[in-house]
């Protein structure tokens, strides 16, 4: 009951309620693991679905993720050691010249909520920095975002750079953002295109086999 309310609070984009409900649930000694999975994560995943169904848009997801984090921040110290076993390592960032990171941030929330280890390089990230990070961190997935037609070409540069440094075969590259699509992904030889944040999580699950 309490946990359902937490899920609903997130869907209703209410961070204060979420915080209160999580506090209450903890007081009632409900298993943090359950609060997280069935409340917070279930909520944010549903938001992801609503987003896919074009019922929610970016602002809604932003508020939902605030609500999510308001609960998550209370819970994570309690369960860190036990369950946050990382499924895979993801590097994410917005390509150079582009500062539109909201979409990327939404992906980050959902991916993080789904239990991945995520390294966020932020926005306007130079091509070199992506490549160097991949070389150093050896992630399983590189997730690239861009909102501008003019900057989407950078994705191509990054993939070419990975090839040159012989890093390409060990990593999956997924891309997203308003101007790109499956066609574009094929053209630049990305492994996958995610049309929205929820889609991105599904893709990551698929290509990392987890």
């Amino acid at each position, binding site marked *: 009951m309490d946990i359902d309310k937490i899920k609903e609070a997130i869907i209703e984009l209410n961070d204060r309620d979420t915080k209160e409900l999580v506090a209450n649930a903890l007081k009632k000694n409900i298993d943090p693991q359950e609060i997280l999975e069935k409340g917070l994560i279930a909520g944010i995943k549903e938001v992801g679905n609503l987003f896919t169904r074009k019922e929610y*848009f970016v*602002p809604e997801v932003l508020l939902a993720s605030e609500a999510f984090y308001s609960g998550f921040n209370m819970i994570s110290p309690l369960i860190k050691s036990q369950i946050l076993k990382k499924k895979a390592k993801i590097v994410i960032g917005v390509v150079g*010249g582009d500062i539109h*990171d*909201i979409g990327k*941030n939404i992906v980050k929330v959902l991916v993080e909520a789904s239990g991945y280890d995520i390294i966020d390089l932020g926005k306007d990230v130079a091509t070199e920095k992506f490549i160097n990070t991949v070389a150093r961190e050896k992630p399983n997935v590189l997730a690239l975002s861009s909102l501008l*037609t*003019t900057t989407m*070409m950078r994705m191509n540069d990054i993939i070419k750079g990975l090839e040159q440094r012989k890093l390409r075969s060990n990593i999956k590259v997924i891309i997203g953002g*308003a101007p790109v699509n499956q066609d574009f992904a094929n053209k630049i030889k990305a492994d996958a295109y995610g049309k929205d944040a929820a889609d991105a999580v599904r893709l990551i699950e698929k290509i990392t086999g987890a």
Partner: protein
Amino acid sequence: MRETLTPRERFGLLVIDEKPDRCNIIPLVTSHAAEIARMKLKKYYTNGEAMARAQIAAIEEYGHDAISIFSEVGIIAEAMGSDFDYPDDDLPVIKRPALTKKNIEDIKIPVPKRDKRLPVYLEAIGYAYQSLGDKVPILAYVPAPFTTGMMLSDPKTFLIQTIRDPDHIKKIMEKSLQAAIEFCYDIIDAGALPIIVDPLASSSVVSPKAYKNFALPYERALIDFLHRYDLDIILHICGNTEPILDLLLETGADLVSLDQVDLSLAIEKLSKRMRIIGNFDTSKIAFSSPEEIMEEVKNMVKRGIKSKKGYIASTGCEVPIKTPPENVRTFINAAKEVGWYWE
């Protein structure tokens, strides 16, 4: 010679509901022009004459039907106080939005002839107009209030405020509208037709409800202002606009430029009152083979010219900077092959 008209004449016929010799062909060749002119991007967006020369070079190279004066959508927000970096080989990048430094009440309406890079646009228009103004229409892209508003703010805060603090958003909108009006005023004086661009109001970003509440009224107000001049106004919203197609009718725009939307659907819904501009996939123009482009553009144009109130063959969004020129040329040739109204 089959081509009878100049681009200017062609556009003129379109906006008085007459069929020109063939449809207008206006792929959104903006910063890509710098590539054609082999010019550093920084020079392109900081120097009006350079911007115009690049555009003229592109016209000479491709022979499309309009000059597009544009670099990026932050132009008004910058003049209102948002800080931008100017990379050499890249478009300006926002560093600090104005509203993270001060309150909306303290933001001043810019003076277009003076502030930041607004004069760059005006100079570019002036130069292009002197050079080709009799033959080619000049289109200057003006960010709509919603887009400017988002460029004035931390985007996340802005979007959250659309739900949490609508009154504050409206204050930002009012100011951005004023700024856009002032800019349009000078653009007209310099000789260009303003195009209203509102990419951040698309359904890729905000809900139709938010579009209706915060973007549409101000697009409409700006278009109303321009209609006082008896000008025909283009509204360009790239990204996904399918959910808001019906709402677009309420903007009062005379021409609407669309991106991710089914062209036939758009024609069905809008072409009684609006001319449709669009909507070739920009990633395709950048990456497809000329053969594929030829085929697909032809299909698009064949559908487009069925639109009752007129059609402009275009790309859904800007032609990406590094697009191979061969592809743009193919786009234009394809459209020229099938886009005829006159025998």
